[in-house]
């Protein structure tokens, strides 16, 4: 494509309001051909809203979007796609009962006389899959894949379409480190091919690894656009919050210094030979044994789709164990249901709280009340004390910095990160004895993930045991006292904090036992 003077994408005086709330205010931004342009900002800063306007999913209230110098009316994603734009949205968008193949080719199916050319499509999709090293069977229904694998499907769908301008809204939030590396390589190769990429991520490492320019958004307005080579992580972090410099996440790794306990803390949860079957297939979780002490933070690492979800669900009672034994504080809990375990103090944050933990159309106060409605604080002889509940919700909202306008708003009006914050806040407010966290930092900004870490440390000091499932090895290394690796439904091994070794963990994650 001939390089003209005009930028490929230009936002001109774009504003967007939701009710009386300004999600975007007077945005002016140029993106040039062949650059990777990162957008950074806190949760709720307005990144997703801005990208949605470029993709025609949201109409701006004022201002215009110019494409190669020409103003373009983007009424719906179709217009955007026609203009050569592709997007991987922040929330998962997929067709649960269609196969992975169909998910990918939809909208640009190879066809003759209206009949789909399945053979050709399959060949191309397999090529794409192998380019990334994903391990997805394209004939499976997308809804049966683990959450993170669905994300991979979306990436493949976007690549399949060969868009010239790519919008990636937190694409890496569910990828493991190895996959992230491959993914970033793909982005670089795209840039070399002359494509333009808008990239949103809360992980500054990735941003600095690929981005040419970084634009920082704060409360709906652009703070500044910087060349990535001429700035630093700490500067970006500072611009994002608009105040003092905050510590960078990687620095936390060294901060984790717990006073060595005088005596060995008593074990809280003991798991012995746990097996879990999923719908009659061969046991997906095979004979897992481990134990966790009071106040311990236990990490579970692994590549996407190795049974983490099933294990987390089995621990919380959501899934029945088909074999083995679990004891919690000395009592056998193997047969207990989710409600009994909750009462015993075991809480889980699911990997997809928006679908599995929140009531999307009910006000936030009801969401925060959910699960504690029987506590005497919130009810009197069966009647809900609404005042108390709303007060409780307001407190949680302000304590956790959730960007909601009132406790009467439903979660559907929150940004992705803020929904995660809300789910976390509810879990932490219950002061559980054992917290099972799946991808706790997913979608959280720097500030919020730091807050989340602090909260976990605080809880652990108070004696709560925490199990963290994450694909992000760095996160686990910085958080945990011990890390185990799960591979194909088995534990490959466990290491203590003093022996942490990225190499070893990495090898375990791909199934090489030492």
């Amino acid at each position, binding site marked *: 494509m001939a390089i003209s003077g005009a930028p490929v994408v230009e936002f001109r005086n774009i504003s967007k309001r939701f009710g009386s709330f300004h999600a975007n205010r007077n945005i002016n931004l140029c993106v040039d051909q062949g650059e990777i342009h990162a957008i950074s900002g806190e949760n709720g800063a307005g990144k997703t809203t801005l990208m949605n306007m470029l993709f025609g999913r949201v109409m701006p209230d004022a201002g215009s979007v110019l494409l190669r110098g020409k103003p373009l009316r983007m009424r719906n994603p*179709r217009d955007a796609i026609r203009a050569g734009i592709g997007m991987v949205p922040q929330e998962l968008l997929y*067709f649960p*009962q269609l196969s992975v193949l169909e998910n990918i080719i939809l909208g640009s*199916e190879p066809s003759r006389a209206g009949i789909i050319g399945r053979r050709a499509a399959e060949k191309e999709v397999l090529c794409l899959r192998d380019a990334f090293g994903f391990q997805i069977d394209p004939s499976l229904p997308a*809804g049966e894949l683990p959450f993170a694998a669905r994300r991979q499907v979306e990436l493949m769908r976007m690549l399949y379409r060969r868009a010239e301008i790519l919008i990636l809204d937190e694409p890496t939030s569910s990828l493991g480190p190895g996959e992230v590396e491959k993914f970033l390589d793909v982005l670089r190769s795209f840039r070399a091919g002359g494509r333009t990429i808008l990239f949103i991520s809360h992980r500054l490492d990735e941003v600095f690894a690929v981005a040419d320019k970084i634009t920082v958004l704060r409360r709906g307005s652009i703070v500044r656009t910087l060349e990535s080579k001429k700035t630093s992580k700490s500067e970006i972090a500072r611009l994002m919050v608009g105040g003092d410099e905050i510590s960078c996440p990687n620095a936390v790794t060294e901060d984790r210094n717990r006073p060595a306990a005088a005596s060995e803390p008593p074990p809280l949860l003991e798991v012995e030979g746990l097996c879990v079957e999923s719908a009659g297939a061969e046991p997906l979780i095979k004979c897992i044994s481990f134990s966790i002490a009071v106040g311990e933070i236990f990490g579970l690492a692994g590549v996407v789709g190795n049974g983490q979800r099933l294990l987390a669900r089995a621990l919380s009672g959501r899934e029945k164990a088909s074999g083995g034994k679990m004891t919690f504080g000395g009592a056998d809990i193997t047969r207990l249901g989710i409600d009994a375990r909750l009462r015993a103090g075991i809480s889980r944050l699911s990997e997809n709280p928006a679908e599995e933990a929140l009531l999307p159309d009910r006000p936030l106060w009801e969401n925060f009340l959910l699960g504690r409605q029987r506590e005497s604080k919130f009810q009197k002889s069966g009647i809900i004390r609404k005042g108390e509940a709303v007060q409780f919700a307001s407190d949680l909202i302000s304590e956790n910095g959730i960007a909601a306008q009132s406790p009467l708003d439903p979660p559907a009006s929150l940004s992705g990160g803020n929904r995660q914050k809300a789910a976390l806040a509810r879990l932490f407010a219950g002061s559980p004895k054992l917290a099972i966290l799946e991808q706790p930092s997913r979608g959280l900004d720097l500030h919020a993930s730091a807050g989340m870490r602090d909260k976990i440390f605080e809880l652990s000091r108070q004696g709560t045991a925490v199990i963290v499932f994450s694909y992000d090895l760095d996160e686990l290394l910085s958080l945990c006292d011990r890390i185990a690796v799960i591979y194909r439904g088995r534990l490959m091994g466990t290491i203590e904090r003093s022996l942490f070794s990225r190499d070893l963990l990495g090898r375990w994650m791909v199934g090489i036992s030492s």
Partner: protein
Amino acid sequence: MMPSFELITLTLLKATPLLLAAFGGLICELSGLINFALEGMMLCGAFAAILGAWATGSPWLGLLFGIIAGICASAVHATASLKLGANQIVSSIAVNLLAAGLTGLLLNQIFGVYGTSPTVAKLPEMNALLHRNMPSPDGTFEGISILVPIAFALACGVMACLRWTVAGLRLKACGESPEAAAAAGLSVFRIRFLAACAGGALAGMGGAYLSIGDLSQFVENMTQGRGYLAIAAVILGRWRPAGVFSAVLFFGFCDAASEWLSVRWTAMPAQLFLGLPYAACFTVLAFYSGKRRPPSALGRVE
């Protein structure tokens, strides 16, 4: 004649209106639009078919009228629920009420009669067609409307479309996730609206079968709950074309068998035979389980 053969033809006859309506409902529901309004669409189709045949003198034009009326009823439902934000179940119920009211009202206004319309010319029957070329095989196809084979052919066509074509895939995509379909560049509203119209056409045809295929008259509320049974067949068939096809045949068979038995086992009370098809379906449900769930976004608009 062998009893099994009688049962088969009776089953086919019983299944035809259900088959048309159920496939109409299936198309609609696969695109994500709940269609509890099949009863109303059938009723509109049945009435308009009579009206058309009466006004033009040609039953084929009557069939066309019936199809158009089904489309119109469906368009009301689709517009209300896709454009105007109505709850899809509510708008379905409203369409059913509207059809019941309007057909009765118009019957009175246009024909000046209550309850039953005048008799009109009906669509040709199979043996009338076969007679032309060969001698009648002792009335084998007696009373079987030409619409019966057409209905089965249409159902097979719909099945093939849903399975193999781009249009079928896109339709299913809209029913799986309208948000994702929109993000993939499809016009969800248009696809769903067209699906609803196609569904309405089939359901209207199902209604027309009752009034000018099977009979040659319209009787107020003549669908008698067949539209509800059709949607039950869609659910029983778990939203899979082949499943819906078998469910419809199963309903038809139970109904045919109960009638067949009721004229032979005269000692049994008639009410028991009237309840038999439903009891049989219920029993099958209780011992049957399948995996497929409804379209993931059924009832959800973007």
